[in-house]
């Protein structure tokens, strides 16, 4: 009796976990960088997780606050910082990719509005499996020297 109840609750737990497992891509700690008034560009950062068994690519994005949204990266070659556009950003299977200052970022080009601290932006991300994610991200002032500082998940 107890055993079958346990089995049933186990089954239930598995079932209720199922829709979660289907959401292969999730985003956490996302934000857009607050910029001085009149700035044309900003960037958005986040961690993208992939619970699927195969890699998935972030291929494009769009937002109502910017004319153009592009995927960019930064590399540091002997102290020289180089920003380049990238075609895609790979989120490895059962892993994650960090979009953070000094590296990958979602570039917001041609801001239609000032991004002031405390505001919000909408951002749509499109992935290689034709899924997409609609996000609402806070606008935050980025304080440097805080990389590796972990925030609580929501």
């Amino acid at each position, binding site marked *: 009796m107890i055993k079958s109840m346990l089995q049933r609750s186990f089954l239930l737990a598995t079932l209720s976990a199922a829709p979660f497992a289907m959401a292969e891509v999730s985003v956490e700690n996302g934000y857009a960088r607050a910029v001085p008034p009149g700035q044309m560009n900003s960037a958005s950062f986040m961690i993208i997780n992939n619970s699927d068994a195969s890699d998935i690519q972030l291929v494009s994005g769009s937002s109502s606050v910017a004319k153009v949204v592009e995927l960019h990266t930064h590399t540091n070659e002997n102290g020289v910082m180089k920003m380049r556009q990238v075609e895609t950003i790979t989120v490895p299977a059962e892993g994650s990719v960090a979009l953070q200052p*000094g590296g990958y970022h979602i570039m917001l080009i041609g801001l239609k509005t000032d991004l002031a601290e405390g505001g919000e932006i909408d951002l749509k991300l499109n992935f290689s499996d034709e899924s997409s994610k609609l996000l609402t991200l806070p606008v935050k002032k980025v304080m440097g020297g805080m990389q590796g500082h972990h925030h609580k998940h929501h």
Partner: protein
Amino acid sequence: MKALRNLLLLTVFMLVGVAIAFYFRPQPVEQRIALGEQLGGDFTLQAENGPLRLEDYRGKVVLFFIGYASCPDICPTALAVASQGLKRLSQTEQQEVAGIFMSVDPKRDSPEKLAKYAGFFHPNFTGGTADRETIDKVVKQYGAFYRMVDLDGSAMGYAVDHSSRLYVINKEGKLAKALAHATNPDALAAEIRNLL
């Protein structure tokens, strides 16, 4: 005999040439400073309210950064670190410190825009730019580097590859330190305090 002398002379010239090339070889700024090379020095930029002269900052510690305002990440991070470092100091100490952001991209960055941009990070920060010749001279003076790069297919048009050091200039206008990108604010505060 004459041929031998010529050969000897040639050898001497070559050795001198090698020595000169060795002396002037490109080196990391830190190494060049450590070797006693005098990097840094005065400059005059165009700012919102007229010329911005480093000379006018004698008696203040100056944090100097070279970049461009449409840079979405490296420059704002550097200025944010500088601002955070500065805020570690007392109000009175802060009054003895100024920040100068020089843009190497005058085509996109007007002096007015740069004033607003730099001031966003700290009220003691200001910005300026100059004509290409002056920019190149200042960049060379500080052992910095930049290069415009076309971004094909990007709405940005072009980006600027640039070195990312934060220069700490002492009250006498001499370059005291060239800090690597994103030094932590505490370390920076300590550097500044050393010079106050």
